[in-house]
């Protein structure tokens, strides 16, 4: 996976919302890390938020489905839902080229 890619382009910030460390949550975390490593190596940050621990955030961020991945930056904010196993859809949904 560690193909050398030029570290250019904007910095990406992601927020991944999960509910407990279920197998689906773990899958989503792993899938996100893989996608970032292969497409955004060196220029991404991931924040994982467990709504079981901070349920108020579900209201603040208008979360319905879990897992939900929110791209905070660069703008515009975009979101995809699911365990992120469909890489093509993640890339399209988050507008990553």
């Amino acid at each position, binding site marked *: 996976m560690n193909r050398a890619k030029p570290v250019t382009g904007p910095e990406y910030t992601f927020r991944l919302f999960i*509910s407990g460390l279920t197998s689906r949550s773990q899958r989503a975390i792993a899938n996100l890390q893989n996608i970032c490593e292969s497409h955004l190596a060196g220029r991404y940050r991931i924040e994982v938020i467990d709504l*079981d621990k901070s349920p108020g955030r579900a209201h603040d961020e208008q*979360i*319905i*489905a*879990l897992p939900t991945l929110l791209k905070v930056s660069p703008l515009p904010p975009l979101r995809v839902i*699911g*365990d992120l196993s469909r*890489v093509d859809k993640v890339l*399209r949904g988050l507008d990553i080229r």
Partner: protein
Amino acid sequence: MPVFRLEPVLQTPDLKGPPGLSKAPTGIPGLDELTSGGLPRGRPTLICGGAGCGKTVLGLEFLVRGASQYGEPGAIFTFEERGDELAANVASFGFDLPSLIAQKKLAVEHVQIDRHQIEEAGDYDLEGLFIRLACAIDFVGAKRVLLDTLEVLFSGLPNKEILRSEMRRLFSWLKEKKVTAVVTGERGESVLTRHGLEEYVSDCVILLDLRVQHQVATRRLRVVKYRGARHGTDEYPFLIGEHGISVLPLSSLQLVHEASTVRISSGNRELDEMLGGGYYRGSSILVSGQSGTGKTSIASCLAATCDGERRALYFSFEESPAQLIRNMSSVGMDLAGLVQKKLLRIISTRPSGYGLETHLFAIYAAIEDFHPSLVILDPITDFASIGNSNEILAMVTRLIDHLKTKGITALLTGALHGWHGEGSPSDSEVGVSSLIDTWIVLHNFEVAGERNRGIGVRKSRGTAHSNQIREFVISNHGLTLINAYRDTAGFVTGSAREAQQRHDATNGGSRTPSGRPGTP
């Protein structure tokens, strides 16, 4: 017997029902009666109907009344409108959402779903929604929950398989939480809801309907399903008025009214004689006839009998109060004096102004307000312009039943169009007549260039009434009934009768033994 209440007063509905089935009162006038106490407590209820039929208002009213009247806080989840929009929409009913929210009696959560922003990339569930529901329920200690309308999820999230299993999980979760939930759903073609929400809600389903007929909208409510409880199965008209929703339960056709044996005068001595002593108090009377036969005069005659003991409420659908007073004073009846003494109230409205139900509610409201012992509706057949004969019949049935329950004497007039003499009355009149205790029919006779009036009692339950058709003269002294005057050719009226009377007088005898000269 359910009694209709107009004011949204605090009710104490019968919460017993069948054992084990507890009810959460809605506080909505009429709805608690027809569900024998309210919605199934601790279980979800589905309210479905087309756009604009009142689903949201019904759901909100259940929550607001729960929070403000029954000490049951509520959580409102709105998927379409924002919280402030919702509050603004229901402020006109006197529902103060901001204050209830401030008192922590209500929590309002707007669930925003923008389908263009959501890309599905793998397996998911709706746990986020559950977490938010739990938060809101815990925050106010909610006993009631409104989800308006869940179906937005179906348009926002493409994976129907996940949605279906999550719906099932949601409804069992709501039951576990022991909240009384109301879920609204959009009516689909030939199905109750477009996305089959009824599949998941098996306890109680209420269907709302808005029909436009003759440019007038009427709302109806039907309890499609109520597991384990007695409920009215008919369609009930309902109104969204200034205090929210009122439902009109059809308490009718149970025939448990007390039958009074007290007679009251019709206001005319000869008519009393024809009826064998007047009308029964609390009975319903139909006066029918073509236009110009004197229906309003017969009605006003009864209205003019009001005194300190009896007050009369006169609904005039063709004439204004001033017109009616003037016309009746020209035939010797002083209605103005009675109005001044507050013994008589005349209310004029155009039937076409509102739907049948609105009229019915207005009539009920006026009765509640004035407490009359006589009610006159003149003419009831004018409603044909805003409803078909079945609907008018249903309305009149409700009304007559309501009046009988209250022991109020009702006189209705019916204008017959194109019914000459002995022909058949129209369907609506036949329908109404079966509910009527006394049916007076007025006739026009056109003979030899003049038009004279006749009056007959077609039926009068429980009275020895005359079967004769008599001549009926309206003069500036009032109404006079003249016994049938016969010559060899039959019934003679007007100038022919007078000629016959003169002839008989000269020949020293009357052909009708009980005949009386024509003028008072």
